[in-house]
């Protein structure tokens, strides 16, 4: 037995005895009003979105050209891309792949040393 969502205003549930399913339906209405094209339950498309891995496209031709260019011109490697860019104006080279420039030591270790 759920409350009557159409009587309750969109922002916050007013009735103190709102059932869990009533609250959920109300939240569902809010979502639908914002995204009218949303699929009713998600289902397999939702799962596929969950399972979808971050695909970073790789062009071996561009990659090899970039490497060749590097070797011949003895140029310094192209500037490191932002982490968020998937494709940009240059192809990553092997030494850039571990792009995450992390400290060699975790901060858990460093802070422990300071405090001991």
């Amino acid at each position: 037995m759920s409350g009557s969502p159409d009587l309750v205003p969109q922002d916050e549930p007013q009735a103190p005895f709102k059932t869990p399913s009533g609250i959920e339906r109300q939240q569902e209405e809010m979502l639908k009003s914002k995204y009218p094209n949303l699929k009713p339950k998600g289902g397999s498309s939702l799962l596929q979105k969950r399972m979808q891995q971050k695909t970073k496209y790789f062009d071996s031709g561009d990659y090899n050209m970039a490497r060749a260019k590097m070797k011949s011109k003895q140029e310094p490697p192209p500037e490191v891309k932002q982490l968020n860019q998937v494709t940009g104006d240059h192809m990553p080279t092997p030494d850039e792949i571990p792009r995450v420039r992390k400290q060699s030591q975790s901060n858990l270790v460093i802070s422990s040393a300071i405090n001991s």
Partner: protein
Amino acid sequence: MAGMSTSASNDDLHWYFSQVKGTMDEDVSEPDIISTVEFNHDGELLATGDKGGRVVIFQREPLTKSSEARSSEYNVYSTFQSHEPEFDYLKSLEIEEKINKIRWLTRRNQAHFLLSTNDKTVKLWKVSEREKQAVGFNLRDEEGRQRGVIQPNSLIVPRYEPMELMIEASPKKVFANAHMYHINSISVNSDDATYLSADDLRINLWNLEITDRSFNIVDIKPENMENLTEVITAAEYHPQECHTFVYSSSKGTIRLCDMRQAALCDEHAKIFEEPEDPNSRSFFSEIISSISDVKFSHNGRYMITRDYLTVKVWDMNMESRPVETFQVHEHLRSKLCSLYENDCIFDKFECCWNGSDSAIMTGSYNNFFRVFDCNSKKDVTLEASRENSRPRALLKPKKVSQGGKRKKDEVSVDSLDFNKKILHTAWHPQDRIVAVAATNNLYIFEGNTTVHPR
């Protein structure tokens, strides 16, 4: 609950701050985000894994001669880079180095062994102590330089000499190329010879000694991926029965499998599922029922499952419904719309038991974590915060207010910080010590029944 642990009530328990590890910087560096926390079997070691693929192992302060209670202080024991980022050129995929899970092996000799895994590869690491080194070689000196001409009658016998304690970590086995999808769980069997690894659609059985092959024991991949309705979210071996394991799904069910029944355990021996009222279904029902973690109790008679809003306790003998449902943060039900928009609804919280199976802990937002007592059903909300980090500081229980009237000392649901999520917690296997990972900080809290005078 009849049959649960009869140890002293946890209700008189007060929690105190012990330590915090990590920087205080507002700017959190991605690699520092802690992704897993795990005590070893006797609680002497505490391992953490982070997004940067590093493992840090802490060791508890050794027992001193005094008759005082043992310290809950943990200090760095060893640290190593477990996994590196990889690029799968064939599929154009980046394989993150983030450590998803760490599981300790049972101690069999002086060294410690643990399994650590990222999305694709499981590694067996050996952590050992070295306190002596060999000196007195004939062909080279102590710096490694070749000695000059050696006189036959001046040969010396090399000997061991004590040295400063060194902790060495070395990868012993690499279990690779067995998972097409992201590994979410690893679990060491009680037989100490095998372990399982689970990804979204498959579970594989490994022998700890053999890396070039693994045996597939569960496969829920449909013929046509368009018909995909359910994925595996967590899996664990029974703590005593070496032939039993469970796996949870995104639909809120837990299947128990018996490896003696068949080679391929697609057919479950038991299925634990709470009946759902079809009238109460909403768009969010399935998403919030997805189980993010499953843990057997130490005695193997119960298991807990964590879904978005609750922790459920199941009796292994009763499949029809959980014996207990604890509300973790019911106040979030009225925020599901925005939690869906900011993706927080997909956050995977873990849960854990205390050593005597009488209490359960799980995390929430705003750096809050919750502790439930199985016997009294009472619960408490605590916060892992730098503001309350003086040595031995008492943690005051927190409360979240839902409605309009907010009492003093209560936190309004609208002011909760959803970026401060406690997904990973661990409870010492015997003592009242808990480790709580708050993004890039690791907090250690100690429980005590006597209230410290202020």
